[in-house]
């Protein structure tokens, strides 16, 4: 869609250039002639009162006036151009100073750009290093996490084992306590029975001994 528009636009532009440029000088000439005509009209109107029929002297006079007018115009033009030259010179100086300033700025900016570029390169290098480091750390992290999982599992297993051991130990101690208690109870009974028996035996022995004791004579 846009291509045909641009094509038409370009063609119209070329047509304008073709049709207007050949007549540009003509227009200038016509305008100059118009100016001259206006001047002649003025001069003729001013001279109307003095002489109605123009003669050779009048034509010369007209010519002189015309030349004076042209001279004045040229003077004006020269002064305009001179002032224009001064202006342009000032502008040029200003532009030079601006150019110098911009050049300095450009140099500074170029230096900054080069330093930034160097910094960027350095940062890129650092980024690359860090990305490598990050990859390595991620790997390490994942391996550590795996190790942690394994360690946790091992810990759980060890805990289970420990609890089992403790349970067995508790069982053992309970059994030992029970055995000890039972043994003490039996020993106590035996001791009591023994004490009773020994008392009975002693009681039984005493009269027998007195009976069996031989006479002193």
């Amino acid at each position, binding site marked *: 869609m846009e291509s045909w528009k641009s094509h038409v636009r370009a063609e119209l532009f070329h047509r304008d250039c073709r049709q207007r440029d050949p007549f540009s000088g003509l227009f200038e000439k016509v305008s100059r002639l118009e100016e001259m005509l206006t001047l002649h009209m003025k001069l003729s109107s001013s001279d109307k009162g003095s002489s109605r029929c123009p003669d050779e002297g009048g034509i010369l006079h007209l010519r002189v006036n015309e030349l004076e007018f042209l001279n004045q115009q040229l003077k004006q033009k020269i002064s305009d151009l001179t002032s224009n030259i001064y202006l342009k010179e000032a502008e040029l100086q200003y532009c030079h100073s601006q150019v110098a300033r911009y050049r300095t700025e450009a140099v500074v900016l170029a230096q900054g750009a080069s330093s930034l570029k160097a910094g960027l390169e350095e940062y890129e290098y650092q980024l690359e290093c860090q990305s490598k480091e990050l990859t390595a750390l991620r790997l390490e992290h994942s391996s550590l996490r795996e190790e942690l999982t394994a360690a946790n599992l091992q810990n759980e297993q060890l805990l289970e084992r420990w*609890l089992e051991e403790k*349970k067995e*130990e508790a069982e053992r101690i*309970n059994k030992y306590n029970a055995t000890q208690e039972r043994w*003490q109870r039996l020993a*106590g009974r035996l001791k009591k029975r023994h004490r009773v028996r020994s008392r009975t*035996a002693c009681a039984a022995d005493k009269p027998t001994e007195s009976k069996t004791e031989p006479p002193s004579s």
Partner: protein
Amino acid sequence: MANEFPVSREGTANSRHANLTSSLDLSTSLDHSVQTRIFKIIVIGDSNVGKTCLTFRFTGGAFPCKTEATIGVDFREKAVEIEGEKIKVQVWDTAGQERFRKSMVEHYYRNVHAVVFVYDVTKMASFQNLKTWIQECNGHGVSSSVPRVLVGNKCDLVEQIQVPSNTALKFADAHNMLLFETSAKDPKESQNVDSIFMCLACRLKAQKYLIYRDVEREDGRVRLKHQPDPKSNCPC
């Protein structure tokens, strides 16, 4: 016959002498065989109330610098002498955390002679949870005649006390328990810590029936059949 008499008499005397000697030996061996009595005391309560520190203070005489959560149970012993009798106080420092207790619980309560309930005076929750601990204790067939004491630990943190003594005392009275408020950390309170276990040991010593109690192990539980000796000579 006359000759025979002295011989037989001598023989009888010899045999009697032998009997006497053997009976003396038996008596001595029995005396030796009757070893030190063991009193199994379990210490229960919420985690981080200071059970381990209390038991360590009693058995080791110091406050442990660093303690980890007890896994299952830790056994501690201390030989004490009460009225001339040597007694071994076997303290079972139990785990407070459920995950470390698991299947151990029945072993705690088997043939237990006394129970120490511990709470943290700076944590009301640990005091409120005592009901659960008592329920657990009763649920494992521990007879009401088994002495129980209530211990409020960490009394040295005076500024942070949350459980008033009156409340604890009421609770202890309601459950027929003695109350001790102490600190395993404070060296000045060490005697108080000792007195907890010594008091229990004295009470247990006074309850002579413990030796002769009929242990029925068919169902793995202890049933106390004899009544405690009413004459108690406990010094505490």
